[in-house]
């Protein structure tokens, strides 16, 4: 019973940051909610059976892995469409953050799941490359290359005016 109370306290405290990370990865609230629930379920499964030194970090890693895994599985169920919806690239205004946010989300949506996971973890959650690499089961060098490529793809989608300056930290 004690572990249930502890888990509920942990879940209430960590759901908001997990949801925000999930929202950026998934691109919509419903899928993000589903992803966070799946993550909490997996954390709860491990909660009573093993010692978790850093529950917040464990949940974050679980979220990333679950996202990449689910996206990989759902690739085959995505339906092709005849006409690609019009994007805001042609008509966007560079003056305001609202347009920038919309462009960014549209651009993120065009990246692969691992690319999005890496960028969100790196820039939103401020994770180090080593932490991301460990979460995704890759080497630091491979993760650094993936992050660089993901940034490059983001530049291509956003256009030259939104080119990201500087190298990957």
């Amino acid at each position, binding site marked *: 019973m004690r572990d249930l109370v502890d888990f509920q306290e942990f879940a209430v405290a960590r759901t908001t940051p997990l949801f925000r990370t999930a929202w950026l990865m998934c691109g919509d609230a419903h899928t993000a909610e589903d992803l966070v629930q799946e993550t909490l379920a997996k954390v709860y499964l491990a909660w009573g059976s093993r010692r978790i030194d850093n529950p917040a970090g464990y949940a974050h890693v679980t979220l990333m892995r679950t996202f990449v895994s689910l996206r990989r599985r759902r690739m085959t169920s995505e339906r092709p469409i005849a006409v690609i919806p019009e994007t805001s690239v042609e008509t966007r205004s560079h003056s305001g953050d609202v347009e920038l946010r919309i462009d960014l989300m549209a651009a993120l949506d065009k990246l692969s799941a691992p690319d999005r996971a890496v960028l969100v973890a790196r820039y939103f959650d401020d994770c180090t490359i080593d932490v991301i690499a460990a979460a995704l089961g890759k080497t630091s060098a491979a993760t650094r290359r993936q992050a660089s490529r993901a940034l490059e793809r983001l530049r291509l989608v956003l256009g030259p005016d939104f080119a*990201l300056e500087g190298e990957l930290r």
Partner: protein
Amino acid sequence: MNETDLARVMRDRVHGEPVPVDRIVAGGLARGRRLRRRRATLRIATAGGALASVGAAAAVLVGTLGAHAAPQAPAGPAAQPSNTPVATHHFAVPADQTARTLAALLPAGSTRDLVNQSAGSPSSPPRTLSVDGAQPLHSIVSQASAAHRSGSLLFDDGHGSALIQLSVQAPDLRRTTSPSREDDSSALCQQPGVTCSTVNGGTLITEGPVPEYTGRHVPHGDPVMSSTAIYETDGWSTTVTAYNATAEKDGVVTRTNPPMSTGQLAAIATSPRWLR
């Protein structure tokens, strides 16, 4: 835009979004409980299988030693064997008759529409069956594996079509490192909504009706399920699950509760039609 801008835009984008914390936590906890139950259920089955293999090995060992020891045995009454061979079940239902047999055990006078009978591939082309004068059954009959039989069908008693699933599983003897059957069984039976009893030496576990995915965003409402599983002492198991919807996930919810009680499901799960 530099990397700082990227981080800021990401934060700005999500910080205005409302977060349904209570709903997410409730849903995550419900799914977590379900994962724990499934893991415990699996352990019960595998532990039973391990016990069966140990028992069989012990019986063989006793027999072998007895044969070798016979010439040197002292005169006098023969010792009674302390180990008796563990009875091992076999499938009683033919591979292509699982769903049809399940349909025959459902309440009479209902419309049944077989939609699937799975476990392995390839599947045969759809064909029409009829059971007990009910309306024709449109079945997709497939092969079953050596360790598994399963059948699924849509059952309609006039109050809404509902998915009924049945699975018969042989023990998985490859997994031998499991906690004790008693420990797992008692942990599982302490879960909310779960009832356990002993039937013919096996453990009968019933659950439901409970929401399948509490708090999850489901377009047509939350599916509710009832389930009954009988775990034999030798590791074989039979599970029957009924839903209030046409599918376990992403189906249409057609009624408030599944069409059959856990008692009715238990009668199906413990039927001699599955194992001999």
